[in-house]
């Protein structure tokens, strides 16, 4: 039977990290989902480095994991090397990075995703939208089909009008060897969305058997391996990674040939991320550096390539071979796939609201790199949120959004939607003000209740997590009543170098035994209690403003005493709460005051309860 007449609840365009999370989330909420992709066999592909996590990003993976998503589970299954970063630098920044086998990763994603009966893979290229009564009614494909649905998530990655550059030669492509999405960006622009031109790049892949590993610095895998899901995969400590570095010869070669770079020759004007510079950029911008560190990452257990992280380039293939051979350990290296730069259209993220819904076409949601981000983890987290809201729209429910203080995901959405971007957005711990409250290790506490409420997770998961944190709380209460050497046990535990195990040896174990993760939580919460309390106070203060909704229909021209800049910003961004309004650039304290006064006057007396008392504490 022809797909052309089929009706879905949600259509997801794109099978990358954003698309698969969107489809999986919507399906778990009961939606029937079409996953429209150019090649279903490429679903879950990793076009960049074969690793998941790292500072800022691993927190996002933990959050997606808490909400039942795919990326953490797939990474664990496909892991060949894990590493805990910032272990000694404190819980706010500790993070996990997992190197994966590229093929096993895609396989894991496809297995998990397509095992869900609600997900239907559809091969094809989205070219436009079917619109009825001013709202999205379906997605049209290049071969003339229409996938009817009241909601769609566009997660097209770098495929929108994608163009790949090898030196000064370029051709239209979404990723290496794959065709771009030619029509979709035109359709989005026709609806009024502002588009931006971004670029990114990849390094060359080297034939694994041509590398002299003895000349490299080995980075051993974590033993025992760590995981996002609590269940490390069978090969999680199977491979080391390595480091090498550039040499003065590399730098000279690059400097002499800059004219062959499409960026330095002025052919590509798209904006690339500062945190993902090409090797040309590094050599030019940090001219006094004698060497730059490079990371050599195996592509998998049985694959024949290694990934040369830190060496992304848009110089011509002829040169790349010579450049690579200036690196220690790569004197006889052969390139299997050349480095390239890709430029693509991205939608200005201020074109969506805090629920990731397009402001131009009701029913259309956007997520991932197409929304101006960079990275698998960012894409996955946005995809999940877009999928949730698409499914809710299909079910006739109001969209959900997260207060900024809730998660890395919410910080990212708030940054994107409130401030916009001028380079691809990367998650970093430094962007998260309340990062001592919002940690990778408590993502389940923060988000599982929401996941249950949204229908992403079964109630039993909510009960499990509630019981876990109740046990932790009871143990902290118990310690508060005990003494070690005359010192309250909690204070004793706060001393530098003192661990929970040592305290346990002195005061005896609790009546209900705690597992490893729970013991870690007890120690962390005791040690950082003062700071956590301070951030908790800040969170409560922010939460007050979250409680003041700004009705969608406010005509900001009619709110007295707003500055003209604030009027313009508010009218464009249409924040949903006073908190979102307060964070918009150009909206000052006086403007927030004016809004508060306007709101109370508009709502009249009685319905409004003073926020100050709701949060009063001793």
């Amino acid at each position, binding site marked *: 039977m022809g797909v052309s007449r089929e009706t879905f609840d949600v259509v997801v365009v794109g099978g990358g990290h954003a698309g698969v999370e969107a489809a999986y989330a919507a399906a778990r909420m009961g939606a029937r989902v079409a996953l429209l992709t150019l090649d279903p066999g490429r679903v879950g592909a990793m076009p960049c*480095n074969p690793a998941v996590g790292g*500072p*800022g990003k691993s927190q996002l993976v933990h959050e997606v994991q808490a909400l039942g998503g795919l990326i953490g589970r797939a990474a664990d299954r496909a892991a060949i090397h894990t590493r805990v*970063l*910032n272990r*000694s*630098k*404190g*819980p*706010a*920044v500790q993070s996990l990075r997992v190197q994966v086998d590229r093929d096993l990763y895609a396989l894991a994603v496809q297995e998990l995703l397509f095992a869900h009966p609600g997900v239907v893979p559809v091969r094809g290229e989205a070219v436009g939208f079917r619109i009825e009564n001013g709202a999205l009614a379906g997605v049209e494909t290049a071969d003339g089909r229409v996938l009817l649905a009241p909601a769609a998530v566009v997660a097209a990655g770098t495929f929108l009008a994608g163009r790949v550059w090898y030196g000064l030669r370029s051709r239209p492509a979404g990723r290496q060897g794959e065709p771009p999405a030619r029509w979709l960006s035109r359709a989005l622009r026709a609806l009024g969305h502002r588009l931006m031109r971004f670029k990114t790049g990849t390094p060359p892949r080297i034939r694994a058997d041509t590398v002299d590993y003895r000349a490299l610095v080995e980075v051993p895998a974590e033993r025992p391996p760590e995981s996002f899901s609590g269940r490390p995969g069978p090969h999680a400590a199977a491979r080391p990674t390595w480091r090498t570095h550039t040499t003065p010869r590399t730098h000279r070669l690059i400097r002499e040939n800059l004219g062959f770079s499409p960026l330095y020759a002025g052919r590509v004007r798209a904006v690339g*991320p*500062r*945190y*993902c*510079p090409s090797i040309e950029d*590094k050599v030019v*911008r940090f001219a006094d*550096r004698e060497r*730059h*560190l490079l*990371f050599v990452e195996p592509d998998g257990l049985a694959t024949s390539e290694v990934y040369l*992280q*830190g060496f992304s380039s848009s110089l011509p293939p002829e040169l790349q071979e010579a450049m690579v051979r200036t690196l220690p350990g790569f004197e006889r290296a052969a390139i299997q796939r050349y480095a390239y730069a890709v430029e693509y259209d991205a939608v200005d993220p201020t074109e969506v609201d805090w629920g990731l819904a397009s402001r131009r076409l009701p029913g259309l949601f956007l997520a991932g790199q197409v929304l101006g981000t960079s990275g698998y983890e960012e894409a996955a987290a946005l995809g999940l949120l877009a999928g949730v809201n698409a499914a809710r729209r299909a079910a006739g429910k109001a969209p959900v959004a997260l207060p900024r203080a809730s998660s890395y995901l919410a910080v990212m959405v708030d940054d994107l939607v409130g401030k916009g971007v001028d380079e691809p957005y990367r998650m*970093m*711990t*430094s*962007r998260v*003000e309340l*990062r*001592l409250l919002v940690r990778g290790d408590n993502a389940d506490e923060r988000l599982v209740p929401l996941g249950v409420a949204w229908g992403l997770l079964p109630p039993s998961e909510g009960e499990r997590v509630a019981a876990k944190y109740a046990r932790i709380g009871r143990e902290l209460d118990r310690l508060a009543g005990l003494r070690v050497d005359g010192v309250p046990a909690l204070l004793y535990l706060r001393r530098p170098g003192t661990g929970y195990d040592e305290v346990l040896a002195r005061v005896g174990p609790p009546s209900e035994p705690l597992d490893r993760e729970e013991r870690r939580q007890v120690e962390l919460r005791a040690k950082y209690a003062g*700071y956590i309390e301070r*951030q908790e106070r800040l969170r*409560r*203060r*922010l939460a*007050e*403003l979250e409680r003041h909704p700004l009705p969608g229909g406010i005509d900001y021209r009619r709110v*007295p*005493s707003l500055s003209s800049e604030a009027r313009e910003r508010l009218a464009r961004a249409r924040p949903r709460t006073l908190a979102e309004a*307060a964070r918009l650039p150009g909206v000052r*304290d*006086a403007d*927030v*005051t*004016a809004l*508060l*006064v306007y709101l*109370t*006057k508009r709502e009249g*007396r009685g319905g*409004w309860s*003073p*926020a*100050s*008392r709701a*949060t*009063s*504490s*001793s």
Partner: protein
Amino acid sequence: MTGLSDTIAAVATPPGKGAIGILRLSGPEALTIGARVWRGRDPRRLAGGRFSHGRMVDPETGETLDEGLLLVFRAPRSYTGEDALEFQLHGSPAVLRRGLAALTAAGARPARPGEFTLRAYLNGRLDLAQAESVLALVEAETETARRQALKGLGRELTARIAAAEAPLLDLLAHVQATLDYPEEGVEPPRVEAALEAAARELRSLLATERAGRIAREGARLVLLGPPNAGKSSLLNALLGYPRALVAPEPGTTRDYLEAPLALEGLPVQAIDTAGVRTSNDPVEAAGVRRGLELAEGADLVLWLSDQSRPQVPPPAGLDPERLLLVASKADRPPAWRDPRYLPVSARTGAGLEALKAAIRARLLGGAEEGEAWLTSARQAEALRRALGRLEAARGAPDDLLALELEAALEALAEVTGTAVAEATLDRIFANFCLGK
């Protein structure tokens, strides 16, 4: 960020000297904070509309700041609709200033312009007609405060705060680079050096707080000494015209009198007091007590001892930091010599210029003239908060270090308006070669 759950405090009476000065405290923690600074009946146990006679104290040292009345208002029956306290103290700017400092040290935040009125409005304590005028008021107050702040915030002061911000922003960027890019071989930052450089700048700026306030509000100078030490004569000499009644017999000045005095553009309120001695005359005795009380609230006390008669040391309990010793009647044959005393003759004018210079120097402290001075209590409070965060940052693990630096920079940003997050990100990528 406008926070409505904070407890806020402010001086509620107009600036300058009045008989009574009122400090107002409002918010969910008003009663608790009040209990920390009040020695009298515990405000937490007082019903709304009741008052307590007692002392306001520094919550850290326990030192008495002033005596007065504490009025308790319970939510919602207060001006703001929240729990609120009013401290009715003596109307001295110095007392009120220290009282406000005590309240902030005990957990309150200085109120922003119009904030009490705003809360009153939001909590339904003002009707709709009044509400219309609230915003205009808030705006006007904000605008005045902003203009004042801008006026005070000359290029130089901004530059000095920026000089403290710069090493902190660099350090924060450096720490963040190591945290967000742990494997890229970023050299560890030199934390101590940067913290100390910033703290030194902040401390030196805070040292100008008093000078800035005195230049703005004027100083209170109290003349104190035994009867007939020549206090009134010296006042007249400083004024350049007779203001005080002088007579050869001791005890001529029985209460006190004040006269405005300009010392090279520095506004000074000079206060002549009754002589310090045990007196049988009840009126005079009260005057003596009053003189000692006045000395408590003064920015500087001149202690006069007649050089032609046996030396009289100043009474114990006067703050040596705020004391300037004068050997009066220096035109007569001296009965004693003491290098700590500045010889002055009101009759011949000898030593008068040196005295004026000494008063000026003592009032302005170490603050160099022509350099930028802090011009508002708010600025000083923000700087002190920043300094506190820098102290906490010492020796903290990296993630907490970064948070403390952010908090310090945000406090400074309240004065300068630097957007911390963006400035840091820019520095990370400008200074470090990062990214895979």
